[in-house]
């Protein structure tokens, strides 16, 4: 009887995750439409008002205006619409207004679908845990679905506060890749745990690691956006066009990326310490340079270097690259070490 319940839950979990993946595809389409309309609008704008002097200056003036309004608590300007509100141009003509409204509509649809997908994914994660009668993060498949869930939740929760609207499309795309890999390549049926994993440290250590991983992923997408935007700002002196024009100024993106990384780094540090405590309990040494431990250390050092570089004269414009290198180390630890290298931790893959 109990076994049947567990099987039903396990297959329910699979269905929820599949459903979430499909809804994410729709969300991505919606955001793609949103971006397409913004892009057309920007192009139309650039053609429509060439006489306003440097478009960039104008943009900054608007940014300042928005800042003032926001500082005075004028929510009326729609500061919840964040970046795009700032960039909106009231004088763009009827056509532009129509496009801007459509873009706005698609964005709302995209966000609504993302919320729905996150809910489904949450149900998938919970039912997976119930089916296995343990925490749902003890192999790479579970790590991927739980991580995606935390990533999406973080994104949705901080959407307003950090003004992450500009991340919608790349972020949804990123999560879709992760979920796609999870259901196709990484999938594992529900199963029990080997003795080394049967410990409450699994709950503590891995939940911290998966949370940090999720927020670092969000940070990496933001840093990538910063690199692209900064390059555009360096190159383009005219009014910027194309999808990148839709992004807030590079300096603002960089600050958001920093805040995400600065949140995730202590969580990762905690995961590292908890892992060491667990290793001392399970294997009788708190640090043994097992490949997984080594790469966790490398990742930690790289992110420490990121935080360092941010306060080092002459390195500030390279920090986003460092963030991406660090994220590369993080990914290698998840994928490379599990699949290529044999170690005490290898069970977390297959």
């Amino acid at each position, binding site marked *: 009887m109990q076994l049947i319940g567990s099987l039903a839950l396990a297959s329910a979990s699979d269905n929820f995750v599949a459903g979430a993946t499909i809804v994410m595809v729709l969300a991505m389409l919606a955001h793609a439409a949103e971006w397409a309309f913004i892009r057309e609008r920007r192009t139309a704008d650039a053609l429509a008002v060439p006489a306003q002097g440097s478009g960039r200056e104008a943009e900054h003036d608007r940014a300042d205006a928005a800042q*003032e309004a926001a*500082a005075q608590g004028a929510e009326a300007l729609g500061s919840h619409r964040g970046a795009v509100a700032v960039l909106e141009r009231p004088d763009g003509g009827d056509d532009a207004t129509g496009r801007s409204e459509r873009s706005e509509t698609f964005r709302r649809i995209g966000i609504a679908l993302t919320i729905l997908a996150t809910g489904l994914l949450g149900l998938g994660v919970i039912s997976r845990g119930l089916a296995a009668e343990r925490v749902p993060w003890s192999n790479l498949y579970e790590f991927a679905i739980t991580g995606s869930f935390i990533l999406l939740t973080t994104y949705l929760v901080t959407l307003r*506060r950090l003004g992450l609207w500009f991340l919608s499309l790349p972020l949804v795309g990123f999560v879709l890749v992760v979920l796609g890999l999870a259901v196709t390549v990484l999938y594992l*049926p529900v*199963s029990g745990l080997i003795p080394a994993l049967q410990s409450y440290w699994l709950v503590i250590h891995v939940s911290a690691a998966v949370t940090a991983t999720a927020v670092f992923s969000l940070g990496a997408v933001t840093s990538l956006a910063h690199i692209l935007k900064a390059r555009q700002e360096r190159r383009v002196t005219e009014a910027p066009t194309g999808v990148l024009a839709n992004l807030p100024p590079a300096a*603002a993106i960089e600050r*958001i990326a920093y805040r995400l990384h600065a949140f995730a780094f202590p969580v990762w540090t905690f995961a590292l310490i908890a892992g060491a405590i667990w290793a001392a309990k399970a294997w009788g*040494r708190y640090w043994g340079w097992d490949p997984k431990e080594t790469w966790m250390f490398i990742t930690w050092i790289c992110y420490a270097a990121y935080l360092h570089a941010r306060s080092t004269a002459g390195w500030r414009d390279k920090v986003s690259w460092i963030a991406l290198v660090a994220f590369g180390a993080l990914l290698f630890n998840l994928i490379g070490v599990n699949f290529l*290298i044999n170690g005490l931790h290898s069970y977390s893959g297959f």
Partner: protein
Amino acid sequence: MTQTRVRDAKHKPAQRAHRGDAGEVAPLRPLEFARWAWRQLTSMRTALVLLFLLALASVPGSLIPQRSVNPVEVAEFIRANPTLATWYERLGLFDVFSSPWFAAIYLALMVSLLGCVIPRSVQHWRLVRSRPPAAPRHLDRLPAYRTWVTEAAPGDVTERATQELRRSGYRVEPRAGVSVAAERGYLREVGNLGFHLALVAVLIAVAVGNLFGFRGTVLVVEGNGFANTVTQYDGYQAGRLFDESQLPPFALTVEDFHVRFETQGEQRGSVREFAAKVSYTTEPGAPEQTYNLRVNHPLQVDGSQVHLLGHGYAPRFTVRDGRGDVAFSGPVPFLPQDGRFSSTGVIKVPDARPEQLGFQGFFLPTAVIDPQRGPVSAFPDALRPAVYLTAYHGDLGLDSGVPQSVYRLDMRGLKQFRTASGDAFRVALTPGQEVTLPGGAGTISFDGYARWVNLQISRNPGEPIALAAAGLALGGLLLSLVVRRRRVWVRATAARGRTVVEVAGLDRSDPTLAPRRDRAAPTDARNDLATEIDTLATALAQHAPPVREEPGCS
């Protein structure tokens, strides 16, 4: 109304001494050179480069097999790639984490760190004991600034500002009727310094563990015991400052061992639980205690820890020699070779007469015959155990004085038994079966099996230090990332019977906030510096309301 601007600050935070860029090229005298070198070593840039080096240097440690992690794999690698291996050996690539070049990097990093952090601690200590610096002349150049004109007297404004700032946790330095200087966030730097010093403490803890700790492993067959002396260990490593006489004098017996494997599903054969029931005495004559030893549940005795690391099978044999005497009887530990516990081992019978006997073979817990590969184990539990042996006679070489592995025969003095047709003599035995060796050299019987456990006994006095240091590092890190360092100034200047109020702030924690190239305002900056200055200004404006006719923009 009043107005806030978040703007380009010309103000640059004071350059910290260790960030000096010392770019001069003129020939240097030794002392100057030393100072220059020290400044380079302790610069942020060097720290950054060393951090990258440390990360990079760790990479080979994960890709190339490491002696400290898996000596067997290293041996295999050397056998497979002898030339490459000599180079790896020379470069210390099999022992990356104890190699001199790895140590050079982290020691340089630690020196750089101390050289950076100690002066900074002194500096911060002075700062903590000093008063907030007086207002700069041009407050309007600071990143957040508000101003308005009021009819309230300057003294009222400064008093009000003092109260407000004190309430929000600022250290306040008022000059009544003129200005107020305030600073908060001293804990940020404390956290940062604490974090870095704690990293040094972690390294010290590692060193303490290496010098004063020990670690030994021992294989114990079910029913047998172990007394904690060096001679009983299979493998033993101790720190330079650890003396064998310090080994706690406990003894333990493995009463019984239990293991359960997954029997169905995709992970069939994975171990699900294993536990050893042990009885132990902390010292000779002490009362006996029992403990259920499992993974994740080490036994603590007398400051040492006993961990259950692994398990395996020890088939039992009885060997009679050519004269019919029992020359050997008992369990022989075989070493598992794969996840299904196909295990290999040897039996040495030095007491056999007229010649010594030796056997070599494998044990399969669930033996099945695979059409291609012959006998293999199908499942890790002992459902249908069998042993497959070849036999030798001659001299085992045990008296030569050279230490020998108990898992390998020294073939130099041995001859293999052959059947009449000249083939190698091979036997397959199931429990209870006995076989006679060719030429009446004796018999061997397979009596069943016992299980063995691999125990690790260790003590690491560095562990509590490392734990405390790690906790300190985490606490410091949180402080330094969460606390914001702010300076705020309020100035009240009497002019034409009214008072010009200026409120300005500076964030000393975010390097990107102060000097910026362009005026692009961050979107997340409802920038909390601006917000804070705003809130303060609003609170002040309640008691010193702006005068209508003269909107005080700068």
